[in-house]
């Protein structure tokens, strides 16, 4: 990045890098955006008077996970899967989590889980406030 004259050198890893764990350096732009747009202290809760309303060109890095479009994408992917003659065996333990006999999930089920986990709406809301 030409804007940063000081070249940041991350400290040497304590363990030799493995072929399995990715240590991206620098992070992808998407990773950076998820970090700096969604999290961190919101200045508006501290300061109201002297904020400068600079135009922000921020983009929304998040994709809504549970939507009809996503459902259709999943449906297409599953119907396109090429299955070998014998159905693949599950890696240990996973089958117990997903109960085959379980009631079909209500339409809002996956959205509810998402909200619990990430509180997406407040983050997007505060970003809108910030962009004004």
């Amino acid at each position, binding site marked *: 990045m*030409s*804007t*940063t004259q000081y070249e*940041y050198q991350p*400290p040497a*890893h*304590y*363990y030799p890098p493995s072929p*399995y*764990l990715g*240590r*991206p350096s*620098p992070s992808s*732009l998407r*990773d*950076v955006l998820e*970090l*700096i*747009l969604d*999290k*961190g*202290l*919101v*200045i508006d*809760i501290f*300061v109201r008077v002297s*904020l*400068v309303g*600079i*135009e922000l060109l921020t983009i929304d890095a*998040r*994709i809504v*996970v*549970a939507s*009809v479009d*996503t*459902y*259709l*994408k*999943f*449906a*297409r*992917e*599953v*119907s396109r*899967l090429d*299955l070998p003659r014998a159905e693949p065996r*599950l*890696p240990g333990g*996973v*089958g117990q989590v*997903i109960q*085959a006999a379980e009631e*079909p*999930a209500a339409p809002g089920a*996956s959205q509810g*889980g998402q909200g619990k986990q*990430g509180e997406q709406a407040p983050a997007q809301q*505060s970003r809108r406030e*910030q962009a004004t």
Partner: protein
Amino acid sequence: MPGGDWPSGPQYLYGITTSSAGVPPGLHGTGHPAGRVVLLRHGAIAAIISSVRADQPLGTPADARAHAHVLAVMAEAASVLPMRFGAVMTDGAAIVAELLIPHHDTLAAALARLDGHQQFTIKGKYIGQAALREVLAAEPEVMRLRRLLAGREIDAYSRESIRLGELVASALERKRMADLQILVGALQPHAAALAPRAPSAADDAVDAAFLVLRRQRPAFEQAAEELARHWRSRIRLRLLGPLAPYDFSGTLPG
């Protein structure tokens, strides 16, 4: 504050750190040309800032990277409270008068709580079609609908299409929850706190931030390596960090 030698003009605010922190020489931040990063100290705390032009929009990829870069560099050596991207204030005097003085004790206490900690973020993606195959094998109804829809158009006008996708989505959600539990079990012993994040893409498996004490870092990194190895055929893990504690700065009272 004697002297009153505060930067004039609009100031971009990266975050708050302790007044004992220092800025590595030559560290530049957002804007074009990039402003030189300085500390604006008051009492035990300091604002991490650089001058920015008010007539120039912010938010280019270079700006985003610069924001994260400045905070990563500062968090290497000191406790840091990162701001969300895009905080700009009128001038240095306003930062002291409206941010540092009125919120000094709250911010100092938050910095003390984070002292000695760094954030690591772990993200994992399901490899290829591993997750879909697991869902298919475990869910007879998914298999049934798949057979039913074989050779037919998958579109929004078909109840079965939507139903199939919905079943897959909710099964994936449960799979994510189970995998998150495995991640937490493996890494929480080496972390002071964790904050799960919502998945942002369909093939996301796990996404969680961990607050790690500096001296626990080797054990944490080793545990991450071991989990990545364990999951190598299902999930590709990435470890980001050390980072400023974005996910653990909380919402402090205003």
